[in-house]
């Protein structure tokens, strides 16, 4: 019953004895979980931060999925219960309140990182043959992230949410039958808020995972565009990546502790007093200047440009230079529009009152 012999074994013989055991365990693990599959060669340059921004976006998305899974347990997706339930989880449940703040900061982190990733890939022309498909799947991923940010904002059912929803339903009026589910009278069986909840927690994340899988599959098979003769096993990529992932999570957690997310009073329709979540401020700026046309055109210009990038910039020359200049100009314009909208006084649109 008791292994008396092991108690009398010397310290030296014990340490010597563990090595083959450890090696045997590693062998067991490698065989069953195909760890050697991570040893495929990648350019050594891919171990730099500018080649890790995509993976860090994925880390932020994982943080969102984990925290969101807990929020699901506390959120009430009905028009009359939603605001109360958010208020409850902020004031009545310390861990959930922290996870909500982590969710809010995680959303900002994901959007900053995805734009940083897009900018890095654009600058190094990572979209050129044969990676055009990789770029286009990225463009759709960006649209899905905006969709998630929008539906997330609306779920709070506060004043900002009601205003965001009014803009979306007005925009949906121009998108035809495709956007019919965004109309309040689409069906009497489900309120619009509950439909948007379904989009936020199921439809958009599923689409995101499917597209992300395609994006990653393409990266695995086409490789990244780093021109580097020195090759290292992909495994060496994981250590710095894990370090940056830990830093990202720690910073998000610190921000969540120091700056908890706000909640406005329950929303009242017909008024516009607030500004949208910051990733939408450039669209808000366009709406300030050009009304409804600006609200529809601004995303049209961004996504239209992104879709054309791999077609316009195929090899060095005038078109390539023009694409780069246009891309940089668009990026700077977006940042300027965000800054302008953040500083300018709030404006009302769509005939709403202030």
């Amino acid at each position, binding site marked *: 019953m008791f292994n008396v012999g092991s108690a009398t074994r010397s310290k030296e013989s014990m340490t010597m004895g563990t090595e083959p055991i450890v090696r045997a365990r590693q062998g067991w693990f490698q065989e069953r979980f195909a760890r050697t599959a991570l040893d495929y060669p990648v350019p*050594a340059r891919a*171990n730099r931060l500018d080649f890790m921004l995509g993976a860090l976006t994925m880390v932020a998305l994982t943080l969102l999925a984990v925290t969101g899974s807990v929020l699901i347990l506390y959120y*009430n997706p*009905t*028009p*009359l*219960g939603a605001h*109360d339930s958010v*208020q409850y989880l*902020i*004031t*009545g*449940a*310390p*861990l959930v*309140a*922290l996870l909500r703040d982590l969710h809010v900061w995680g959303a900002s982190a994901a959007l900053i990182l995805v734009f940083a990733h897009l900018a890095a890939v654009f600058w190094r022309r990572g979209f050129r043959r044969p990676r055009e498909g990789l770029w286009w799947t990225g463009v759709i991923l960006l649209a899905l992230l905006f969709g998630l940010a929008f539906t997330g904002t609306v779920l709070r059912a506060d*004043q*900002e949410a009601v205003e965001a929803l009014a803009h979306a339903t007005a925009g949906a*009026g*121009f*998108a*035809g*039958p*495709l956007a019919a589910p965004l109309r*309040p*009278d689409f069906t*009497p*069986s489900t*309120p*619009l808020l509950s439909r948007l909840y379904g989009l936020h927690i199921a439809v958009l994340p599923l689409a995101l995972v499917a597209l992300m899988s395609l994006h990653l599959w393409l990266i695995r098979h086409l490789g990244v565009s780093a021109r580097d003769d020195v090759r290292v096993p992909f495994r*060496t990529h994981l*250590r*710095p990546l*894990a*370090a*940056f992932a*830990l*830093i990202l*999570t*720690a910073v998000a*957690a*610190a921000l*969540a*502790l120091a700056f*908890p997310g*706000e*909640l*406005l*009073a*329950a*929303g*009242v*329709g*017909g*008024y516009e*007093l*607030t500004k949208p979540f910051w990733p939408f401020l450039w669209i808000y700026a366009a709406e300030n200047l050009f009304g409804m046309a600006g609200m529809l055109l601004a995303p049209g210009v961004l996504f239209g440009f992104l879709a054309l990038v791999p077609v316009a910039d195929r090899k060095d020359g005038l078109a390539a230079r023009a694409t780069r200049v246009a891309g940089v100009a668009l990026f700077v314009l977006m940042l300027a529009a965000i800054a302008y909208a953040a500083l300018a006084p*709030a404006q009302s649109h769509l*005939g709403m009152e202030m």
Partner: protein
Amino acid sequence: MAHLTRWIGGAGPAAIIALGLMVASPAIARAHEEGVLRPASRTLTAGDSLALAGFKFGKSAPLKIALVGLGGRFALGEVRTDSAGAFDIRVLVPEGAAAGSYRLVAIASDGDEVAGVDVAVTPPAAEPAGAHADGTHGAVDMPDAPSAEPLPLVTARSSLVTFGTVAAIVFALMLAVGLLRSARTSVSLG
């Protein structure tokens, strides 16, 4: 490849025209002014009367007010807006309306819905607390005036969660530094 180009050549314009029509048709159809409905409360009691205000509709326009949900569609009355496009009435919530989620809607003379607000109907008899059909714990009133100010909420905190998080942050940062150092050594060692 040639097949594909030909197919795209034919389908492309057709798709653009179809998309254009899809996009344009509702924009043409929705030529209404959309208004705002403001019930005194968003929790309605079957059999009770309800004060209902509306504004930002067409001037002197006839509107039908209805309650629409899985429990049925109930006509609550008709109203004509004033010269400012507003109205103020009382409507009776039908006694036969089953408890549940509904939308209170305003319908223009051409049958288009021009305003709507989500509401819940509760049964006339007193019910046990917390048993609302929509899962809320009390009557949900419409706020009188909208506000862009954050609610003065005190975020729930517990020392266990706060100190646990601070400890996790410190640990994560230390681990990150260790990983970066060892990554640099292993890469520089080749």
